[in-house]
């Protein structure tokens, strides 16, 4: 996983709960790195341990912590140079979600060795979107759930995200339904 993921988690905890909370989480996770280099590859295990320790420290379940982290991930990404890239991908949730896979494909091509997830967004007749998420990494469905909500917040749009298929429950991959209640969909 790229260091930016761990750095984003660190930023979320530090901004909301203070630097001491992060030190506690890092110690509990047994992670020695005080600083994460954003474009360096770290073992996935580091991120999983940090996410688990964060959930424990905040007194929430791991899926809940991951969902909150997914929401924050978009906040974090938007204030990085990637924010301009994201906005160039689309001016609304409806424009961005179909381009999500292209964005990740570009990154994967530009940075060989980076294991990027894949997406497929399919429009429904009622105007909602089904977002299919494919990843070599297990257990990150709640993170994507939160990220989809975060994208809605980034554009100032009201979206309702629900999970239709859950890989953790045996489905081949995660599928999310993104609805836009303000247009009656």
């Amino acid at each position: 996983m790229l260091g930016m993921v761990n750095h984003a988690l660190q930023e979320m905890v530090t901004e909301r709960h203070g630097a001491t909370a992060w030190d506690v989480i890092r110690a509990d996770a047994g992670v020695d790195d005080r600083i994460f280099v954003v474009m360096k590859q770290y073992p996935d295990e580091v991120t999983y341990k940090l996410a688990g320790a964060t959930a424990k420290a905040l007194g929430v379940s791991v899926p809940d912590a991951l969902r909150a982290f997914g929401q924050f991930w978009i906040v974090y990404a938007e204030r990085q140079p990637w924010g301009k890239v994201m906005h160039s991908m689309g001016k609304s949730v409806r424009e961005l979600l179909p381009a999500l896979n292209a964005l990740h494909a570009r990154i994967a091509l530009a940075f060989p060795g980076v294991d990027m997830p894949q997406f497929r967004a399919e429009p429904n007749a009622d105007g909602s979107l089904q977002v299919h998420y494919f990843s070599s990494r297990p257990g990150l469905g709640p993170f994507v759930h939160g990220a989809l909500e975060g994208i809605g917040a980034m554009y100032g749009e009201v979206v309702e995200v629900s999970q239709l298929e859950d890989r953790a429950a045996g489905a081949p991959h995660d599928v999310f339904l993104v609805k836009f209640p303000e247009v009656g969909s």
Partner: protein
Amino acid sequence: MNDESLSIIQTLFPFHVLVGVDGGIVHIGKSMAKVMPDAVGTPFLERFEVQRPRLSTMDEVRARCDELVLVGIRGTKLQLRGQFMQLPSGEMVFACAPRIVDQTSVWSWPVGIPDFAPHDGSADYAMVIEATNMQLNDLERLVNTLQEKERAERELRRVAEEANRTKTNFLANISHEIRTPMTAILGYAELLRDPSIDPTERTDYVETIRRNGDHLLAIINDILDLSKVEAGRFDIDMSDVVVPDVVRDVVRLLNVRAISQGVTLTHVIEGDAPRIPIRSDPVRIRQVLLNIVGNAVKFTEQGGVRVVVSAVPRGSRMETVVSVHDTGCGIPPEILPTLFEPFCQSDNSYTRRHGGTGLGLAISKRLATLLGGRIEVASEPRRGSVFTFMFESDVSGAAPAHPSEVEMPASRAPRGVLDGKHILLVEDSIDSQRILSALMSLAGARVDVASDGLSAVGRFDGTYCPDLVIMDVQMPGIDGIEATSRIRSRGFGGRIVALTAAALSQDRERALKAGCEGFYLKPISRADLLAICVGDAGSL
């Protein structure tokens, strides 16, 4: 160009420009349309400039088909890179994509990543540029972290050096403060060895030695208090307190000095709230007040000192404020910031003239903090000062106290107070044996003396049963704590109290654990010794 061909060109090159035989723009790609929506129908060379190779006519362009060319959009800094292709119809297609030079050029185009053809590597380049930006930001973050760490380390070093300097100054001051009375004590003791001095001088010398001894003891006690507070070992002993009673006690105590200086000392209790009992430590409140009221009296040569007590209940809490107003010499503004530091007095000559250890305010400030409060000072040289001691505490729940007269405790025990008492003094120092046994005998006690722990223990054979054992702690052989333990194991149930020069709290705990009922510090005054003997003195 037919529709099928145009569709293929459109898919492969969304930024393409189709130029007619006459050099006019016939069609532009959907992504290019976002950049220049009004291009169709205008001459190509009017809207574009072929910059590399530099070509100025369509014939020249036609002659350089299939070469890599760089084309600028006139009126902008935007550039396209691509190639011209000659079609059988005579038309030309400029198949191109935006040229991305650096991070600032990427997003100056009114297009986004989806406007690039999937095969177009230019968009990947845009990603790499943004990743480079991110890495630059990251580098800046890492450098800031390092600089912050360096700053923190420098600050720590500065604080450590400052603390070291303060400690050195403190030790130098302590050394000076101790040496001054010590010099007098040793000097006058030396003079006393002269047998020819007359009795009046002798009495005078002894009085000087005693006065300097008292001063030395006050300094040592203050240093111990200060070090205990700073080490966090100062215990706050909570009980019900009626602050006005403590204030009245302090005022009464200091009134003697005020009267002797010709200064008035009064106190005012504002309203009924101060009389509501609170939970706090009366001993420490008294210590703080003795210091700040004592200072006020000490440094006031004309006029008076007024102590005002007020209190504001806040639910189950009470904020108590005691302000001490004096018409004394005041404190120079440059001294105020360090007033609560050890050994800081506005004028050293005052110390000499008025006495004091120079530690009182430092201790008081720390005690005030321990009591959940603070001390503030406002002062004007030659006009006077106001010291305000304010602290918050819980309201006790006991009934409000009525104004009461607090009797001063008797300072001296009368001769004969120990009549009939049988006391064992365990003490290895001959001088201490002599003084302590003399003082107790003069008060009527029968005193046995044991010079070490073993001989003391040996006395307890089952029949030996003094009323009190006064036990020194540090002695050769077995110490006083071990001796106490052994005496207790022999079944002695009477009082044993420790009397020691070691003022450390762990000694006290060890002594109490071994079976001592009290723990007292040397040197000890006659009154305190007799109070211990009759069981009427508060232990440490």
